[in-house]
């Protein structure tokens, strides 16, 4: 047992404080990447100690976007937190909505009508598409491509955002799902538009692939870089595409079968090497799987009610108790832990952010690689600061 | 017009400056700089004598300088590698300190 303890102790024991100044006898250089740095996806900061260009120590510093989300949620009603969940992982507001709605439904024992479930799946998978596309775009940006892949990714993202806007009224902050269903029904013509977008999406994926997938520079930059062994991934609580790139078959859509995911025929792509390239490719492949799901969902969806008639908009007070609900958000396991004390406000409202926990293994992946790799490895973790710091 | 002697004078001056660097500074890198200066002074002499010498078309002076540059480069490469190597062990580039820490 002691050996396993040793194996599981974090790589670096001491805090960073003892290395903040440059040790005069060593040749190490300490620099801080961020909080204002072009490739830290916002206000993330890494304190890095370099030996030449090799990273020997890396400590993430958080909190630059700590927006007291949980505190606000505890002092307001259940309903009022939905728009705040939009702003958690602001690339994927609909997934966040779903995770929160799912947790509240668990807490209060609400049922979701079938049509609403379909809409949720469609919304979540569209979200996954645009998230993965922009993640890859940003990743390429970090690798120094001067904007082109990102632009292409955002070109497609805009099409999906148009769908979101038509459905929910907002491009990013959708505030769409409600406890026991969804806020409004699909507008006329939306399904056709969505089908069109989904049908055209593979074209973009192909374009992306021919632009990048076999590019020697990309291969050289990504293969064998930032390897995450599966054991460490599980240890570190890593979820989402990163985990699967390391070869661990764990997709909450398959494990929990929440919503109506069991109705769809889709597969979970798994990587073998757990390196940057695998993480990139897994996202590409997941997009193709999402397209499959979307294709099925868009054709299976039938008319019906979109919200549980028992669900209340105002004066919603679940019975005392607690619940933890989770979904497979594009970034990993997004969970909400709620405690109700019978009042209109939750007693405890906790977000389990995939981005934060996926960062646990950042240092392990980066040690020994160069500064440039660090940025790229960081890019493949796909974090959103709103969720990391909340 | 440039008389040969001015060239030689310049060369002598350069040599002395380099020499002063070698003698009066203790930093190994500065000493190397001094040596480079002295070598350059010698090169200048070659060129001057080639230019004003009796058989410039033989190109001997020029050839010498070319080779001298080669030698100087080799010297600089090895010298600087040595300095870095010594520095890694002694953490200084001061000659006397390197000496005193020998052992």
């Amino acid at each position: 047992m002691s050996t396993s303890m040793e194996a599981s102790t974090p790589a670096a024991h001491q805090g960073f404080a003892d290395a903040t100044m440059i040790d005069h006898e060593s040749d190490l250089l300490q620099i801080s990447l961020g909080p204002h740095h072009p490739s830290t996806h916002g206000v993330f900061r890494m304190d890095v100690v370099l030996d030449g260009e090799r990273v020997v120590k890396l400590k993430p510093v958080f909190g630059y976007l700590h927006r007291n989300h949980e505190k606000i949620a505890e002092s307001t009603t259940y309903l009022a937190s939905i728009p705040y969940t939009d702003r958690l992982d602001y690339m994927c507001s609909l997934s966040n909505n779903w995770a929160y709605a799912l947790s509240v439904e668990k807490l209060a024992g609400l049922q979701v009508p079938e049509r609403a479930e379909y809409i949720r799946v469609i919304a979540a998978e569209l979200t996954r598409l645009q998230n993965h596309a922009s993640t890859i775009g940003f990743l390429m940006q970090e690798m120094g491509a001067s904007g082109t892949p990102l632009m292409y990714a955002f070109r497609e993202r805009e099409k999906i955002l148009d769908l979101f806007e038509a459905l929910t009224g907002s491009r990013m902050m959708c505030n769409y799902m409600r406890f026991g269903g969804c806020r409004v029904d699909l507008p006329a013509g939306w399904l056709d538009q969505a089908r069109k977008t989904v049908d055209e999406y593979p074209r973009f994926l192909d374009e992306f692939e021919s632009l990048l997938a076999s590019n020697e520079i990309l291969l050289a930059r990504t293969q064998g870089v930032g390897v995450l062994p599966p054991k460490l991934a599980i240890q570190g609580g890593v979820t989402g595409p990163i985990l699967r790139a390391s070869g661990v078959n764990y997709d909450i859509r398959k494990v929990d079968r929440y919503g109506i995911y069991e109705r769809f025929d889709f597969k979970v792509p798994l990587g073998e090497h757990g390196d940057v390239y695998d993480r990139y490719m897994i996202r590409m492949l997941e997009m193709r799987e999402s397209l499959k799901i979307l294709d099925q969902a868009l054709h299976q969806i039938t008319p019906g009610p979109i919200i549980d008639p028992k669900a209340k908009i105002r004066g919603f007070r679940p019975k005392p108790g607690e619940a933890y609900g989770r979904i497979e958000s594009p970034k990993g396991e997004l969970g909400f832990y709620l405690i109700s004390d019978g009042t209109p406000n939750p007693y405890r409202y906790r977000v389990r952010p995939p981005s934060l926990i996926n960062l646990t293994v950042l240092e392990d992946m980066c040690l020994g690689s160069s500064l440039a790799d660090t940025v790229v490895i960081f890019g493949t973790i796909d974090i959103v600061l709103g969720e990391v710091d909340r | 017009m440039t008389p040969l002697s001015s060239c030689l004078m310049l060369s002598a001056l350069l040599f002395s400056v380099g020499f002063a660097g070698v003698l009066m500074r203790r930093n190994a890198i500065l000493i190397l700089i001094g040596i480079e200066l002295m070598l350059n002074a010698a090169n200048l002499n070659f060129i001057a004598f080639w230019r004003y010498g009796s058989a410039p078309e033989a190109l001997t002076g020029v050839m010498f300088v070319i080779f001298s540059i080669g030698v100087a480069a080799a010297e600089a490469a090895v010298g600087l590698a040595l300095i870095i190597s010594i520095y890694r062990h002694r953490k200084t580039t001061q000659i006397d300190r390197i000496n005193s820490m020998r052992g």
Partner: protein
Amino acid sequence: MTALAYNSLHHASPQAADQIFLIVQHWIVSHAPAGLQSLLAILLSVVAIVGGFGLLFAITTILERKGLGRIQNRYGPNRVGFFGSLQPIADAIKSLTKEDIVPQTADKLVHLLAPILLVLAAFSVYAVLPVGRNMVLVNLDAGVLFFFAIGSVTEVAVFMAGWSSRNKYSLLGAMRAIAQMISYEVPLILSSLTVIMATGSLSTVTIVEKQAGFSRILPHWFLFTPWGFAGFVLFMIAATAESNRSPFDLPEGESEIIAGYYIEYSGFKFALFFLGEYLGMFAISGLAITLFLGGWNAPLPFLTWVPSYLWFFAKLLTLIVAFIWVRGTLPRLRMDQLMNFAWKFMLPMALLNLITAAVWHFMPSGPVRWLVSIVLVVVPYTLLGRNQMHKSHLEKRVYRFAE
């Protein structure tokens, strides 16, 4: 010796168009007092070079921004002036009136001198660049050597900028820049040696003149020989690295070290770095044109009536567009890959190419010579390329899917 040869002035029309600048220059100079004539002639040429390439810089910035825009499915600057054509002027005015910040801890003098030295080095090399028939400032006997020698001063300027800012990122950027520039300088020189072997001269003018003429419709450019083609490719790769362009833009690698060695420069000093980099790019492209693409020579026999300088600038623009295109496509290399590529691919290829050129020279012309040369180029390319790919285990992968 000097560029101001007026020999072809009295020829008729096509030449007149070709030599229009010289004629104008001659005309202006002839009005000056005798003692100042040669000086004035030089001054006019210098002004033409500085102004011309300064203008080209402005054009290129807007071209690049618009070109990248088009690659990325958007317009790019199109509001300022006609189709955004005045954008560079606005940028210049802005830069001029911007506050100039010198960091407190910086080495102020060196900080000031660095951009000036960079521009100085960048402009100086144009002295030996023949931009048209009889249009070269000085036809140096050791022109190409002059080019490389002055070019290497750029490294010093970059180092001065990075070091004097006293910023970790800038110093890292400067170190990267120097390491990269020195690593690619060797293949750069070696790949141009093939041309020098063929022409027996370091004079840029002679090199261009040797490429005049056509066999049937193929011009006698060195590009159209196996070793010349390989040399050109190597030269262009090295040139991209020398001018810090994508995918070799590590010294400015925005995603890692923010803005590289000029991170602390503001106002017009920063603009000067931009200028210096672009000038360097033009100059090295100009050298590539001189060495491999026949300089000012027309590409097709029936196009020889087009003035020579137009050909030069057309070729230059083509290369610039290629640079932009590449920048719009490729991600950046990593430092170690960059260095490995320089030393383990570029250098051996360049050395082998020398041998190819020698073999080409010593063999009688004919298809056998072509065959041997091509083999000498292609085989090492494949092997070294394979080695580059293999060493880092690059491959296409297949993925497994779980239910």
